[in-house]
């Protein structure tokens, strides 16, 4: 089976976030594989191990994403592809990323494409369904279970806590929700092997795309931190008094009850 995973290198949002020069300060920040893409990579490896074939992990970004791609290879993916847009595209959005990914994938005859349901930094959840639409293949988002039986695929989808059991067929794109699996950690032999696995680098030119073809449709005017909340008030004194005070504050000061 020909399996592709869409992987984004993201800022680790567990870190403290600061702004400098109008954008998020990335100096010294920790970057990771988007957590939902880890589920996608794990699932891809499991599907390959059960059905045979090959897992290719693709990322659109700059050369710094090589590190996360190597991690994916160390987990067990077979190949990695970096589409490096550093020199070609200044401003991009989800349209840009999806267009580039779909252009790369259009002649690859992918059977199964896995993505994360959302990136923890950009947070739009657009890229998966957009790519599926351009490729004209069906998609199922926020999946928690995937079963493949020949051409038939049965997927369980999380819908705000309810679940839907969906039957569909390959080729297919799915986006991973937490609960799909437990992503493995790269093993030491995995890390050694990953160094020898192919990691190809492409540019827009190689995809016959111009900067104009991928021009963003939206623009960010401003990035800012939420107004600093006044430090919360931790109440003190007898527990009974604290409870009375809290009810009083919620009623008279905050006016929410």
């Amino acid at each position: 089976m020909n399996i592709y995973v869409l992987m984004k290198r993201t800022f680790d949002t567990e870190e403290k976030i600061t702004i400098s020069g109008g954008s998020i300060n990335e100096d010294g920040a920790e970057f990771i594989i988007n957590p939902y893409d880890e589920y996608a990579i794990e699932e891809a490896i499991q599907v390959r191990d059960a059905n045979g074939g090959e897992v290719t992990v693709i990322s659109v970004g700059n050369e710094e994403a090589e590190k996360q791609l190597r991690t994916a290879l160390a987990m067990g993916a077979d190949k990695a592809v970096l589409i490096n847009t550093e020199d070609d595209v200044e401003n991009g959005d989800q349209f840009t990323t999806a267009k580039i990914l779909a252009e790369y994938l259009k002649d690859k005859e992918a059977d199964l494409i896995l993505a994360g349901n959302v990136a923890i930094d950009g947070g739009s959840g657009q890229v998966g369904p957009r790519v599926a639409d351009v490729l004209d293949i069906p998609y199922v988002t926020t999946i928690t279970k995937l079963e493949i039986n020949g051409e038939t695929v049965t997927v369980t989808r999380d819908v705000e806590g309810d679940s839907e059991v969906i039957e569909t067929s390959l080729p297919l794109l799915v986006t991973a929700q937490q609960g799909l699996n437990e992503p493995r950690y790269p093993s030491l032999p995995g890390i050694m092997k990953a160094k020898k696995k192919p990691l190809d680098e492409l540019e827009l030119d190689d995809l016959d795309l111009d900067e104009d073809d991928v021009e963003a449709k939206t623009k960010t005017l401003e990035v800012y931190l939420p107004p600093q909340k006044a430090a919360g008030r931790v109440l003190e004194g007898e527990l009974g008094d604290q409870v009375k005070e809290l009810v009083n504050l919620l009623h008279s000061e905050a006016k929410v009850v």
Partner: protein
Amino acid sequence: MARKVLVLGEVRDGSLRNVSFEAVAAAKTVAEGGEVVGVLIGGSVNPLGAELVKYGADRVVTVESEKLAQYTPDGYSQALMAVIGEENPEGLILGHTALGKDLAPKIASRLSSGLISDATAVEVAGGNLVFTRPIYSGKAFEKKVVTDGLIFATIRPNNIAPLEKDESRSGDVSSLSVDIKDIRTIIKDVVRKATEGVDLSEAKVVVAGGRGVKSEDGFEPLKELANVLGGAVGASRGACDAEYCDYSLQIGQTGKVVTPDLYIACGISGAIQHLAGMSNSKVIVAINKDPEANIFKVADYGIVGDLFEVVPMLTEEFKKLKVHS
């Protein structure tokens, strides 16, 4: 610049979800005096058209078909694209719900348009329609505009106030017949979790429990508190994973995103993935026995103590308050 703006209403259990009315309000801002056209898609949705008008839509177009009784991206995108083809709108607003998240990117791709997802506000500023949206798991915000083509956004529930319902408003409800073809994802089964009472994502008060609640029974005092406040019960991933409650109660990045007036976190440590689902709440109360717990960093008011002592006392105090006022 007056625009024609379409709003997709969302139906659940036979009635419109609140987010649909909020979307109408957002559409009014985007329309800048132009026409707001509601769109309803489903098995039988015509009777709901009038309701959307009362909340501010000028008229409503419905697409009904048995094939649309359940949401599928193929079915709904064919229906919505047909309406878009008829109406040629300059704006399009959906709720950022499971349905909106799944459908909107496909429509944006069909139209080769931009899409601003999960907006919490929209305003006209400097001649632009500016959308605000949380990024970095809610730790930062961005202001965004569409630079080319359709003004297209999904809005986060419970953030943009709906217009007041006006019973005297009337508007045309027309239906468009669309031949729904190939649906490539077939829903075989839906496991609905029994969610009693108030819809969590639309509740004004949420009482949420975490691993500190310790058992299924441990949720009982939280339910009582929620009842007294007319609110809903929610949970952290920790509580769901420990099987103290159902995953349908989960709040956070992988669960529901809530923005109530009052959020009471009981026995929740405050992991970033949890905060991503509730940090926009207007007032946050934390009850935790660990004074160092991260949840206190986002809380407006905190009580360091055992939730099994504090929560029942709170319930009693709120009961007294209700009697007096």
